[in-house]
C-alpha cells in the first residue's frame, strides 16, 4: 500500500506516480500534479468537500481524521464566513484553523485543537488540543478564530448539533 501525498490516504494500491489515480481524492499523478502542487490539490479537494472519489469509501473512513492523523499543516484560511459541518483542524502550534467552503453551518464540529470564541462573551468557548471538541458538540454562536491574525475564520451560526 502507498500513501497519497495529496489527501494522505494510506491505502493506495499503486504508487503515486505514472498516472496512477488515488482512489480517495482522485488525483492522477503526472496529470493533475503537472501544474498544481500537492498542497494546492489538497486545498482544492478540501474545498470541494473532501469527498471519496472511487466506488465506496472504506467503512468508517473520515477525511478529516485522515488529514489530522497525517498531521497536515495549516490549511488555507480564506475568511469564509460560514462552515459546512465537518472538522476544523489546527496544527499543534496553533496555526490557522482550516476553513471549509460553504454558506451555512450544519452538523457537528469536531475540533482538534483550536479556539472557539464565544461572540456573546468575547471569551474562548473551548481550547482543546488533540481531543475532539465534544462539549455537547454544540456551539451557539461565536467565531472560529485564526490565532495568527485574530480574525474570525467564520461565523458559526446558532446550532444545536
Amino acid at each position, binding site marked *: 500500500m502507498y500513501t497519497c501525498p495529496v489527501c494522505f490516504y494510506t491505502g493506495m*494500491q*499503486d504508487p503515486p*506516480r*505514472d*498516472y*496512477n*489515480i488515488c*482512489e480517495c481524492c*482522485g488525483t*492522477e*499523478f*503526472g*496529470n493533475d500534479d*503537472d*501544474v498544481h502542487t500537492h498542497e494546492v490539490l489538497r486545498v482544492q479537494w478540501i474545498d470541494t468537500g473532501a469527498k471519496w*472519489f*472511487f*466506488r465506496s469509501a472504506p467503512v468508517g473512513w473520515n477525511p478529516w481524521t485522515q488529514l489530522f492523523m497525517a498531521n497536515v499543516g495549516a490549511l488555507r484560511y480564506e475568511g469564509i464566513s460560514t462552515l459546512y459541518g465537518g472538522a476544523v483542524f489546527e496544527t499543534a502550534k496553533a496555526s490557522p484553523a482550516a476553513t471549509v467552503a460553504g454558506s451555512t453551518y450544519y452538523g457537528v464540529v469536531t475540533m482538534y485543537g483550536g479556539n472557539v470564541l464565544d461572540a456573546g462573551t468575547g471569551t474562548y468557548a473551548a481550547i482543546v488540543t488533540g481531543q475532539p471538541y465534544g462539549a455537547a458538540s454544540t456551539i451557539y454562536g461565536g467565531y472560529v478564530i485564526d490565532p495568527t491574525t485574530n480574525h474570525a475564520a467564520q461565523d458559526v451560526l446558532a446550532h444545536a448539533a
Partner: protein
Amino acid sequence: MPMMLYIVGTVPFLNAWQRSLHFAKHGHEFGAKNEFDYEAMAEAFMGAAMHPNMHECYRSTGTRDRCRIDANTRHFGVAFNVLTVRTYYTVTAAKIIRHRGADGYVQAQCAMTR
C-alpha cells in the same frame, strides 16, 4: 525512422482496477458508456496511425512510456511496454497553452522522470 506496428485491440489497461479508476476519472470526457467502451477508445487512440497533428514521444526512463497527443482533439494517452495503457484523457486547453502547444505538452510529459 524505425517502423512501428500497432495493433488496435491489444493495448488494454494493466488490470481491471486501473481501467475502472481511469474510467471513473476520464470516461465522461469521451462520452464513454462504460469502462470497456473507454478502454476501447484508449486502445484505438494509442494504435491510431500517426498524422501531422499527432505528436508522439518516448520517455527515456523506466518502461519507455510512449506518450501521444492529438492536437486536433487534445486527446492524450500513455502506453508502456508498447502494449499497456497507463492513461487516456483530454488535456485542457489551458495546459496546452501553458506548454506552448500540443507538442510542448507531450514533450514535457516525456521529460518527466516519474
